[in-house]
């Protein structure tokens, strides 16, 4: 095998990884933001239960989540059928299978910083805005969002970085198919298995530098915000 082939193969993994991280963050924003809002302001009795579910991916081995995803999204089940209807493929070994797995796996990384940020601005701020004549949407767009800028940035950056670094769950659900579900973490694993340390170095070093820059950016802009991961 010539070196160009390998380079382009690694390049494909990089593109897939970035695509995965971006799409995952998009869905996290869509699902995780209302969830964080709900946890911060609305729920009382249900809060511990929902918080537990959201936080579970932090403590469970990725293989457990992967295992249950495969079971629940088996093409024979209702969930599996819905998944096929939406994406045209079954969950296992598909890119959107990876997306779903990543959303679940990175959910606590989106929800927790944002929830903390919402809780910090507090109910009184929202009440004030409402009582001054702003509607619920106006309050969210013109008061909560700007006040929670740092929370959104933190959620985005660490969810993004976390998705980049996934290994267990993407291997379990995606299977590491080249050009489809093979992400950087799996490429590195493959290189090391084949004793191609040079290629592993390039990807691992790249990941290290990228993650370093991402986190540095976060902490630089967020000097006073503590990234709280339970």
């Amino acid at each position, binding site marked *: 095998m010539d070196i160009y082939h390998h380079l382009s193969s690694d390049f494909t993994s990089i593109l897939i990884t970035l695509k995965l991280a971006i799409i995952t963050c998009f869905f996290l924003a869509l699902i995780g933001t209302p969830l964080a809002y709900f946890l911060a302001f609305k729920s009382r009795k249900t809060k511990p239960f929902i918080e537990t579910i959201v936080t579970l991916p932090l403590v469970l081995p990725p293989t457990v989540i992967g295992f249950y995803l495969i079971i629940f999204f088996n093409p024979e089940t209702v969930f599996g059928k819905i998944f096929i209807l939406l994406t045209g493929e079954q969950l296992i070994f598909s890119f959107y299978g990876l997306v779903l797995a990543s959303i679940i796996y990175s959910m606590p990384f989106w929800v927790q910083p944002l929830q903390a940020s919402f809780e910090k601005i507090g109910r009184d*701020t929202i009440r004030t805005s409402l*009582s*001054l004549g702003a*509607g619920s949407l106006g309050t969210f767009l013109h008061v909560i969002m700007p*006040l929670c800028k740092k929370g959104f940035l933190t959620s985005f950056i660490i969810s993004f970085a976390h998705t980049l670094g996934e290994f267990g769950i993407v291997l379990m659900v995606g299977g590491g198919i080249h050009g489809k579900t093979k992400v950087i973490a799996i490429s590195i694993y493959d290189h090391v298995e084949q004793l191609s340390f040079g290629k592993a170095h390039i990807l691992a070093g790249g990941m290290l530098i990228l993650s370093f820059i991402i986190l540095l950016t976060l902490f630089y802009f967020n000097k006073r915000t503590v990234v709280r991961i339970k």
Partner: protein
Amino acid sequence: MSNLSVLFKGKIGNLFLNFEHYFKNNGITILYGPNGSGKSTIISALGGFINGIETRIIFNGNELHDIDKYPPNKRPFGIMFQNPILFEHLSIEENLDFVIKRNQIKNQNKSSISKEYLIKHLELNSLLKRSPENLSGGEKLRVVLARTILKQPKYLLLDEPMSDLDIKYKAKLLVFLKNFNKKFKIPILYITHSIEEISQIGDQIILVKDGKKIASGAVSDILNTNSFGDLTGKFELSSVLDGIVLSNDHNLHITTLDLDGQKLIVPGLPGNFNDVVRVRIRSRDILLSSSRLETKITENELEGLISTIEIENNSAFSELVILLKNLKNNKNIQKLRARITTYNLKKMKLSKNDTVFIYISSVSIDRQAYQSI
């Protein structure tokens, strides 16, 4: 004349609220009661922030209690919450514009209160470009008040607005509120724990305890009744008298007031000639005598008629309500409440309708307890 009829009934946390009241005046109504009695909850419920209790709000003939139909942002109230909040991502001016933008139609109305009026009277000019972060407590309060008023509310609800303000600025703001209320005829519901604030700006007062209304009425009447003292035990029984400034002595820093033809000398310079000034006198600072004293122990000698005597159970004291003699037209209307020992009362052989002479030391007259009205 605006009228507001409310009923709130139901359990909220540990509180069982059962509050019903009919507000029918354009003045300032004080909501008074111990902590946890439900005062703030009443304001929250008016604002549409309390769910799951029986609620009735009828304001000038409109039913406002349906939260779906009248969510908090559609209600005609201007609310200042107990912890006033400025939006930190906006400058002071942007904070004011935030509410103007969202109430544009009302702000274009001719009778609306202008931003310029508020900037001038609340002295906000130097603050406009600043960020809320580094404002002092008093500055923040003025901005929040201006922002609340710029909503052009039909009713102003203020939850302990002055609690962390120094005395000097408090007096100024109280004057502003009183004038504002008179000028624009916008009624105010005002929560406070301060007897000074009550006696200075309150017209009506509602006493609440454990979520229930205990009493309500004119401030001067309620302040002169025992139930007020019983409610908290915190404040001493006192009376409120209205007088007109006769003369000011700028050297000695004293003012002579005309109380229905009688004279009262008070410390400080609470007003200019002919201003009406309200004075609060604590019941225990009053000395009584059944005859005019030959040797004057104080300049302040007033003449009155005993209207009621109430001997306290299991106590050494008695409460007397005295009607101040009106030397101008014989209509004795101002009431003074005195607290003396029952021993003294018996010794003087005082009874109802007797004439008494009242002696008050100028020193004991509360310095913050008067104001031009």
